[in-house]
């Protein structure tokens, strides 16, 4: 198996068109190529997820796991503290709770508890598979829960370029990193850099669109309706600055506050539940550190505080849409 970049014959400095999911896989392949300590673990991964990676890297680097999330997460952590750099694919984010103890009590704490003797270079990958009528036990967006845990880093990118650059940075990082993919974004295409050393440093937000009237921060799958809303509003003469934090922990609050200093208005959008969400955290930070800039109340748009229902007639209702974002912004103008 050769990757899209290899097939293209392109070199460093070039770009290639690729969707979000392929960009993620490409990042993994490049890093596995670069560093033989990188291995992958996950259920059915020799067949799914890993693509045809077994052919390329051999069975010693692509491990199909029994359905034992708690322990295979721990096995990954054990391998990480003993010389490897595993990517543990937890598949659907709703299964992360099974691995929560190992992620929190072991991965996030071992370095600190051992006074730095042990380092845990591991990536936990999972996808947020909502909007597909899979109902409550398969549709969670649980990244806010892990924000409260010191020792973890959390990445939640919204574009093919970002997922490639951030996944590569996550794999090279010496701390545990949780990478949340939003499956709504899998088909999204973009021109991504082919440079094998293209990295996006963890903790830097991206201004996706410049604007002067309102700052709009959107996370993961909420980015598309946010950009659509900004586009629509620009036709009405409202100039929206759109920011993607990309990394949630550490969070690049400076970029957000700087924008609010300019616009004086802040709207936050995400598809996770409302209470103790990331948009709540950003609102709190701005209400503390950027209060003087605020001309109007901060507005948050999130999923309703309801589990994801099976019926498409209901599920469609629960996430912020372009229209709700437009309305929220107009309220502030």
């Amino acid at each position, binding site marked *: 198996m050769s990757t899209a970049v290899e097939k293209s014959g392109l070199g460093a400095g070039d770009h290639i068109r690729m969707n979000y999911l392929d960009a993620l896989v490409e990042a993994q392949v490049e890093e596995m190529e670069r560093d033989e300590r990188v291995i992958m673990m996950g259920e059915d991964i020799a067949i799914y997820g890993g693509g045809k990676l077994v052919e390329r890297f051999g069975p010693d680097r692509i491990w*199909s796991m029994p359905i*034992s999330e708690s*322990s295979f997460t721990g096995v990954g952590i054990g391998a990480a503290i003993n010389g490897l750099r595993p990517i543990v694919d937890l598949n659907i984010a709703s299964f992360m709770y099974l691995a929560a103890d190992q992620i929190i009590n072991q991965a996030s704490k071992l370095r600190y508890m051992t006074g730095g003797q042990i380092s845990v270079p591991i990536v936990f990958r999972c996808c947020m598979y909502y909007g597909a*009528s899979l109902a409550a*036990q398969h549709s969670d967006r649980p990244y806010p829960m892990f924000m409260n845990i010191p020792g973890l880093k959390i990445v939640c990118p919204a574009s093919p370029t970002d997922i490639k650059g951030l996944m590569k940075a996550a794999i090279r990082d010496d701390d545990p990193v949780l990478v949340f993919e939003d499956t709504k974004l899998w088909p999204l295409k973009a021109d991504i850099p082919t440079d094998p050393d293209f990295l996006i440093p963890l903790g830097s937000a991206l201004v996706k669109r410049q604007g002067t009237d309102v700052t709009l921060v959107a996370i993961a799958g909420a980015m598309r309706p946010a950009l659509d809303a900004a586009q629509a509003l620009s036709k009405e003469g409202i100039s929206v600055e759109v920011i993607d934090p990309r990394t949630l922990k550490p969070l690049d609050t400076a970029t957000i506050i700087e924008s609010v200093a300019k616009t004086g208005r802040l709207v936050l959008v995400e598809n996770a539940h409302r209470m103790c969400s990331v948009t709540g955290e950003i609102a709190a930070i701005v209400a503390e550190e950027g209060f003087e800039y605020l001309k109007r109340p901060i507005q948050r748009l999130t999923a309703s*505080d309801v589990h994801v*229902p099976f*019926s498409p*007639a209901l599920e469609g209702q629960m996430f912020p849409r372009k229209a709700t974002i437009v309305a929220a912004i107009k309220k502030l103008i």
Partner: protein
Amino acid sequence: MFDSHQRETYRRMLRIRMFEEEGTRLYIAGKIPGAFHASIGQEAAIVGSCMALRDDDVMTGTHRSHGHPIGKGADLKALMAELMGKQTGVCRGRGGSMHLADSSVGIMGESAIVGGGIPLATGCALSAKIRKIDQISLCFFGDGAVNQGTFHESLNMASLWRLPVVYLCENNGYAITTSIALSHGQTSISRRADAYGIPGVEVCGQDVREVYRVTSEAVARARRGEGPTLIEAKTYRFDEHQVGLIVPGEPYRSPDEVEEYKLRRDPIRLYREALSSGGVGEAALTELESEVRAELAAAIRFGEESAFPTPDTLADFMYSTPLTPS
């Protein structure tokens, strides 16, 4: 000749088969959203064990969730409407294909979290013991679920307190694409019972009469207060893990193996043949078959004619009483 037990056994197997055949068709036609996991091929394991229960016994199941409630005796209309995401669905459109609970016939939830239902069934049994009622819990799970910690932890508790629970593993040989040999250090599931000091029994899951016999013994044992049994029903799923699932690369199971099961080990055909050779006439069998077919048609009609839940009901059933908006 065709006694009521046989009739009900055959009826339930047919119901599952036809429900899933029709469901698959509707799913492909886009009338059922989400994911669809068929139990076709596994009907004997399900019905054989459910028939050993009383109506007031309880059960938990899995993501492969259509067969279990039907096997336990649920009405097809509300199940079909649920698959279509309608308000008349058994779960009011909130649960869908992986969560076809029906508490009116003792189905206490199907867990789409693999292994998640094992402690629930164990807890139902603990409640029966505490409340001193002679109710049994039947706990369905797959071969893949055996590798979850909950299998181990729950069987230990059930053994320790001699709980009235029957653990029924539908061992269809695979968890999605992963065979038992690639995921289980030791491939016999029934052999694991000894670790907990409880009986472990292996049974041919394609033979509904054998499953019934073995489960009845386990149920009797549990009702006598002698504790849990682990039953491994060796079975096979005829379809892919999920309808429409594309498995890239080399096949993970050989087409010959699949053919062999479909042709020679179809549990419904096997039972039909047994009934025939036991003297049940063709007419009686085809009559029952048409009855079920008609029942299915009515269920589909019911589902199609039902309305979707309205957006304003999104938060209904979240809490026992609605929270003050926060």
